[in-house]
């Protein structure tokens, strides 16, 4: 019997290892402007997964001849803190981090009007402070908030979540255990404003009917997460508005 068989991911009465139902998200907490020096920043918590994102730019970059004359370049670095995982991760970027940086960049790019900032670079840094599954999706949620917080024009926020499978059951927002021992893990990112899916990966196996079910479940969850992103941004700009108008901070505003 392998370790995989010993781990109970979902009980007979449909409770997952952390007590959630199949379609239940982990507690979400999102905040923007958590850093002073960055042009835009955000902290996103999806249960035990905590990701910090910072945006710098649009700004000059060298060597200048590598900057296209008709648009900005987007650079993304996804990194995990050494202490974010059970066994200490070496600080040097792994192949996994390099790949994830690339797919996150490609998930964000379609949402941006890069042509507005020719010959500049926009740098997005995401740092996983604590990992409990879904670090790339939390990174995308955080990065897109940080981009908006930096005032970079966007077609819409990019929102991401992972769906997966345990046996015949589709599940949403996988934790670490489900990610490791589940039958499939499928991270998805979308621009809810346009309906474009900008990231889609999967490992494990997924029968075709469940695949469709999983995509639909993800879309539903993305709408909820997107609402939370909007709330986080709105909260900040209401605070600014009140400051400008000299109104005391008022949650009802």
């Amino acid at each position, binding site marked *: 019997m392998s370790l995989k068989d010993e781990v109970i991911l979902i009980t007979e009465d449909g409770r997952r290892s952390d007590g959630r139902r199949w379609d239940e998200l982990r507690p979400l907490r999102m905040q*923007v402007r*958590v850093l*002073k020096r960055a042009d835009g920043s955000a902290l996103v918590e999806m249960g035990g997964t905590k990701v910090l994102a910072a945006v710098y730019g649009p700004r000059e970059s060298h060597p200048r001849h590598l900057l296209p004359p008709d648009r900005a370049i987007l650079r993304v670095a996804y990194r995990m803190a*050494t*202490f974010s995982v059970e066994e200490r991760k070496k*600080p040097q970027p792994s192949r996994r981090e390099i790949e994830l940086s690339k797919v996150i960049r490609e998930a964000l790019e379609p949402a941006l009007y890069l042509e507005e900032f020719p010959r500049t670079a926009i740098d997005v840094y995401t*740092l996983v*402070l*604590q990992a409990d599954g879904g670090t790339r999706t939390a990174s995308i949620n955080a990065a897109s908030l940080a981009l908006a917080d930096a005032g970079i024009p966007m077609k819409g926020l990019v929102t991401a979540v992972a769906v997966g499978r345990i046996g015949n059951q589709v599940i949403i927002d996988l934790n670490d255990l489900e990610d490791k021992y589940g039958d499939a893990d499928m991270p998805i990112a979308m621009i809810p404003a346009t309906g474009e899916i900008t990231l889609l990966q999967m490992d494990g196996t997924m029968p075709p009917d469940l695949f469709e079910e999983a995509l639909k479940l993800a879309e539903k969850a993305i709408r909820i997460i997107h609402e939370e992103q909007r709330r986080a941004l709105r909260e*900040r700009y209401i605070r600014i508005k009140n400051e400008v108008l000299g109104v005391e901070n008022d949650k009802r505003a």
Partner: protein
Amino acid sequence: MISELKREIITKLEKETIFSLLSEGKRIDERGLYDFRQINIIPSLIKKAEGSALVELGNTKILAGVKVSPARPFPDEPNKGIFVVNTEFAPVASPIFEPGPPPEYAIEVARVVDRAIRSAEMIKLDELVIIPGKLVWMINIDIYTLDDDGNLIDASMIGAVSALLTGSIPKVEIVDEEKEEIRIIKEETQPIPIQDIPVSFTFAKIGNYIVLDPSYIEENIMDSRLTIAVNQRNQICAVQKGEGGGFKLEDILLAKDVVIRKADEMRSIILDQLAKKPRGDKAWEEIKGE
């Protein structure tokens, strides 16, 4: 601040303002010359780390985490545990940090923090032995800069010390001493054995003035930098002069007096914050956007 990195542009007006305020004994953020900024510590917020602390020194923010793992001892010290301090200048922290290998300054910060902890004998290394001569605990202290508004050395020092003070080591059962087989019982832990709490103070020399705990804008125009760390008995346990420029002997003695005067205050702020702040999931609620 960082000689080999680009310095950020600072306007002549800001520079002149800083100087004219200094001549009246004042600073641009309204502190006194020898005041350090407010310290805020959020302990034990990383579940996967054996110890952790988020430290704010004014607007400067760092996150320190401790990981412990069994390792082979150094041949010259077979019955002592090991600790390693490492700083990651995460590019989230500043427009001039870039992803990639650590710049010189990051290595300098880590080594100063390491020296202060080592010289103060903060950790009882001889209590970190698992199998004498063969297996000991290695404590990795990793410090991530999150927001650089100056004085990363002192912020990192507070972070390292706080993460160690919140840190724990799992219980170990020796299965076979010959084969070095052990079983780690994660559920049963004991605190990292600590016997001293060093604190550090960094000064900037700006023209003829000496200021404590320089902010980013002050680091940008400083001529030189001096860090002094002391242990619990007020013995100096690390000194580092950084950047070009130099200090006069009386500057150094003045700085030393300030350190001796302030050390207990900083130490009790650290202990007080660690004692009263919520930990774990509650700790995250302490982090708020602007």
